[in-house]
């Protein structure tokens, strides 16, 4: 009898522990209802994100939203696509899970995954952690804060050096100029009649389906 009582207690404790495990919140969970989460994501500080993560090219963001609760941003420079990402909101308990989708590049890998090399980089790598901060900031209704990003902040040296030149108020880079050449230098060369060869990274136009 005593033996059964002990086992009963053990099983009760184990069941409670397992129930506790089951309540572990999924990755990307926010204690905000889906509609409220979507509303906050629509107001995400995309300019703060741009300022914190761009390289030396001027880029623009086009925000799209579909009926299934996915908000996407197409990133382009001079109308040439350079990146794209999406945020998908799904209900989870009393809150929401916000998943991040990133455009797949021509080599089959996610763009700006921390391992990619571009002739005309637009954003610092890795992109995903910087997007999580975009979501966190939006849900918390605060400006984008790069100080919250985990290391490494950037794995792309070309991007970093072009960004430094842009921030110093000197050089702006263009996707229509050769790799690493400041736009002013390219214009000067063209004015002298030089024909400049411009590389392309082949980033697709937009996210056509979730994460692709």
């Amino acid at each position, binding site marked *: 009898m005593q033996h059964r009582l002990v086992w009963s207690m053990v099983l009760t404790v184990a069941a409670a522990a397992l129930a506790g495990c089951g309540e572990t919140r999924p990755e990307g969970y926010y204690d905000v209802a889906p509609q409220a989460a979507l509303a906050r994501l629509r107001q995400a500080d995309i300019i703060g994100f741009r*300022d914190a993560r761009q390289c030396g090219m*001027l880029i623009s963001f086009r925000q799209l939203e579909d009926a299934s609760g996915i908000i996407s941003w197409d990133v382009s420079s001079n109308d040439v696509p350079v990146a794209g990402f999406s945020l998908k909101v799904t209900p989870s308990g009393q809150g929401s899970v916000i998943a991040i989708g990133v455009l797949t590049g021509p080599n089959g890998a996610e763009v700006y995954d921390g391992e990619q090399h571009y002739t005309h980089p637009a954003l610092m790598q890795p992109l995903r952690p910087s997007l999580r901060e975009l979501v966190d900031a939006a849900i918390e209704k605060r400006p984008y804060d790069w100080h919250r990003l985990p290391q490494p902040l950037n794995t792309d040296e070309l991007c970093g050096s072009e960004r430094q030149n842009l*921030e110093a108020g000197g050089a702006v880079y263009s996707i229509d100029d050769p790799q690493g050449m400041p736009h002013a230098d390219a214009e000067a060369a063209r004015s002298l009649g030089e024909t400049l060869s411009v590389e392309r990274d082949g980033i697709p136009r937009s996210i056509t389906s979730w994460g692709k």
Partner: protein
Amino acid sequence: MMRQALRLFAGLASLPLLAGCGSGWASYAVTSEAARHALVGTTIPDLAFGYEAHAEPARPIGNGVVWQIDRGAGDTSAREPLLLLVAKLAPVQGGTEVSVDVQPAAGTDRAAFDKTVTGQPAVHDLFVAIASEAVDAGLGHREFNLARIHFQMAVAALSMLPQIQDQMDRAAAAQEQQERNAVDEAYRAAGQ
């Protein structure tokens, strides 16, 4: 002036931290005239100021001598008066009493100087210690001994740590703002 003083004090923080001693006044068994004669022309090594400042040789004033401390130890063209270390000589029974004081250099803002000095008593004490050691070395006909001001250096450096951190934070924030402005200007110029 305040920023210059902060830079000087920040430079002092890099000096070795060893124990020593210093005082604000002392008596010497020499006449005031002999004391003044011995002190005029004496110098203070730049290392005492962490190579952030330079002391001109002592020159006579009415009742003592003064060392003018200029910002910028190495580059003479960049030097500008920062403050004065004053040694006042008063005849007393059997000799001369020497008291030291820290005063603003001519042309500097007295109110800002006083605010800095009262807000940073440890730094004031360091300058007093430097002046006292300069007097003691001059009247003792010996070299300036840095070991005798190391304690005050250590205390001053520790007392300045919050200000140094704050100054670094503000400099970083200003740099970030400047960079943001440059980026904003680039987008404005491009019409985006």
